[in-house]
């Protein structure tokens, strides 16, 4: 991975007007006369304006996969539009080195009356491919979409999934220097989504820089090495994807670091592998979760709970010190303690959230509960031959004679 910077944002800010625009003459004429009297400054907001993005700076290097995440209204869409040049920032500068192609809302350029074949040419050209290039990749595109038999049907007769698949297939075969990717990876069924992610990895290996703007933490976690967290138009933080995802889940669930007036609270939760602190793990590897607790008063009958949730916050697994040791513990006032959970990560690639609770078994209530104390990102070098959140290391045997197996394709 080179250090050559291919995209640079310098104090980029963009403002929008709240409420109605004047889009008919009747409204415009009185508005214009008013506007002429007032002079406007770019860095100041007038009455109805707000900053959709404020002071965003970052550098993206060649060959990097950079994620941009954030809650709704954080400015992600605005960011995308600025990056691909549809909008200009009010303040600041965006420097792009190389060709840029945007994989935004696949099929935006499709026309319903044209056939799949015609739309491939149309959309390919819109995304910046030359006719020769499209001809050369045509079969590959059709094969990727899996729509060979419908390729001469007008796309208006396609299902929405087919539509999106064809759109993604075209877009995924554009070879720009920088590729902007929107939520498009969440199209199609599970299988096609995996295919999309795989394709992204291939594109990355070919040296393309990918900027990925998404809500899909799993996809961001799998694809990106660095990410930016946007919050209400400001950059919350930029850094290694795992940490950024953890910060995101913190602001998303409103967890705040230990309230100081509690009798006891969870100071921090640290995940590590054999060697060092990390949030990224290979499927099947071991993780140690160190839970640091601070007690203000002495408390008896304490226990620490641990749970693991998938991306949709569905609890996959839960345990506690009480279950594991069949006993509670007690802490002294003004003391610190740490307990470590050791777990085998039999999980499929994706993002998982760890919840930690500090439970008092005497009065049956939590002293502290962090529903999203940290996140775990699971990677897999190889295909795990399965779908779902878990990795149960499947193998298969049958009593069929040899030769009963035929490979498809």
């Amino acid at each position, binding site marked *: 991975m080179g250090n050559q910077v291919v995209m640079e944002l310098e104090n980029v800010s963009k403002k929008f007007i709240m409420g109605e625009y004047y889009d008919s003459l009747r409204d415009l004429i009185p508005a214009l006369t008013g506007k002429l009297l007032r002079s406007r400054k770019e860095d100041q907001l007038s009455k109805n304006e707000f900053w959709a993005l404020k002071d965003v700076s970052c550098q993206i290097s060649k060959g990097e996969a950079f994620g941009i995440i954030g809650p709704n209204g954080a400015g992600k869409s605005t960011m995308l539009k600025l990056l691909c040049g549809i909008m200009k920032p009010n303040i600041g500068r965006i420097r792009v080195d190389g060709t840029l192609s945007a994989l935004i809302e696949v099929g935006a350029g499709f026309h319903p009356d*044209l056939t799949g074949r*015609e739309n491939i040419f149309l959309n390919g050209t819109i995304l910046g491919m030359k006719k020769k290039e499209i001809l050369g990749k045509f079969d590959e595109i059709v094969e990727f979409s899996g729509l060979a038999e419908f390729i001469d049907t007008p796309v208006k007769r396609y299902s929405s999934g087919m539509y999106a698949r064809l759109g993604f297939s075209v877009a995924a075969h554009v070879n720009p220097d920088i590729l902007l990717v929107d939520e498009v990876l969440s199209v199609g069924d599970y299988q096609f989504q995996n295919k999309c992610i795989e394709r992204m990895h291939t594109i990355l290996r070919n040296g393309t820089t990918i900027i990925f703007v998404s809500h899909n933490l799993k996809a961001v976690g799998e694809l990106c090495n660095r990410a930016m967290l946007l919050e209400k138009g400001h950059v919350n933080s930029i850094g290694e994807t795992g940490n950024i995802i953890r910060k995101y889940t913190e602001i998303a669930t409103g967890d705040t670091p230990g309230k100081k007036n509690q009798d006891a609270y969870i100071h921090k939760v640290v995940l590590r592998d054999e060697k060092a602190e990390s949030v990224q793990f290979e499927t099947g590897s071991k993780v140690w979760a160190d839970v640091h607790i601070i007690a203000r008063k002495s408390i008896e009958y304490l226990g620490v709970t641990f749970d693991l949730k998938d991306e949709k916050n569905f609890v996959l697994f839960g345990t506690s010190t009480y279950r594991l040791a069949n006993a509670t513990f007690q802490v002294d006032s003004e003391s610190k303690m740490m307990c470590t959970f050791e777990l085998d990560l039999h999980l499929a690639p994706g993002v998982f959230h760890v919840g930690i609770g500090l439970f008092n078994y005497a009065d049956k209530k939590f002293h502290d509960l962090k529903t999203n104390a940290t996140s775990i990102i699971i990677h897999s070098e190889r295909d795990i031959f399965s779908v779902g959140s878990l990795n149960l290391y499947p193998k298969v045997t049958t009593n069929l004679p040899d030769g009963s197996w035929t490979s498809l394709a």
Partner: protein
Amino acid sequence: MQEYIREFIKYKSLLYVITWREIRIKYKQSVMGFLWAILMPIFIIAAGLFVRFAISRLTGKGLDFSQVASIAVKATPWAFFISSVRFATNSLTGNINLVTKIYFPKEIFPVSAVLSQFFDFLISSLVVITLLFFGRIGVSQYLLWTIPLIILLFLMTMGLGIFLSAANLFLRDVKYIVEVFLTFAIFFTPVFYDASFAGNLEWLILLNPVAPVLEALNACVVLKKGPDWSWILYSAAVTLAGLWMAIKFFKKLEPIFAERV
């Protein structure tokens, strides 16, 4: 301006594909298909003939074939002009998806709108040429002037289309105004009549920059004489100035298209 033109040329394959799309969509799922491109000007010519016939009955003067030829020669480019302006006006609002999602020079939309109408114009021109051939209008060296005249008309239409497409994106009233304007424009343009028809007020008719072009086409094809140079120069000057301003206007507004749709 050079920069705009350079970028526009860079995206020429996109211009080609969008134009092709417009042409393709227009005739898909229509039984008549490309026949429409021929029928529309025939309707306009028929309407013109009806008007001319009524006039000749009123004035008592006869109607000869050269007058029929004049109407065909003027009505076909006129049909191109009005359908292009109408189509170009809606070209940005009709492609909102692409305007707000993907970056490329957006004047491709109005220009391809005009180009796709120009394709129809070429087809209907074949009808007119056939008509002139069977009417034994004959040829002259002045026929060569039709090419620069048609280019002039094309640029004029393009300038207007570029301006109106952007204006319509910001003010949706524009398309209604354009509609009214186009409906009545035929009365103020010498399509069904000649500019000389207006007598002393001929200059007023010719102030409309489309008028000298139509008159000149008629002169070159039917009357076998050269165009009226002073008026053609006037028309060309208006066209170039208009096109330049339209592009400036369009490019100034282009960065805020995505915000204002």
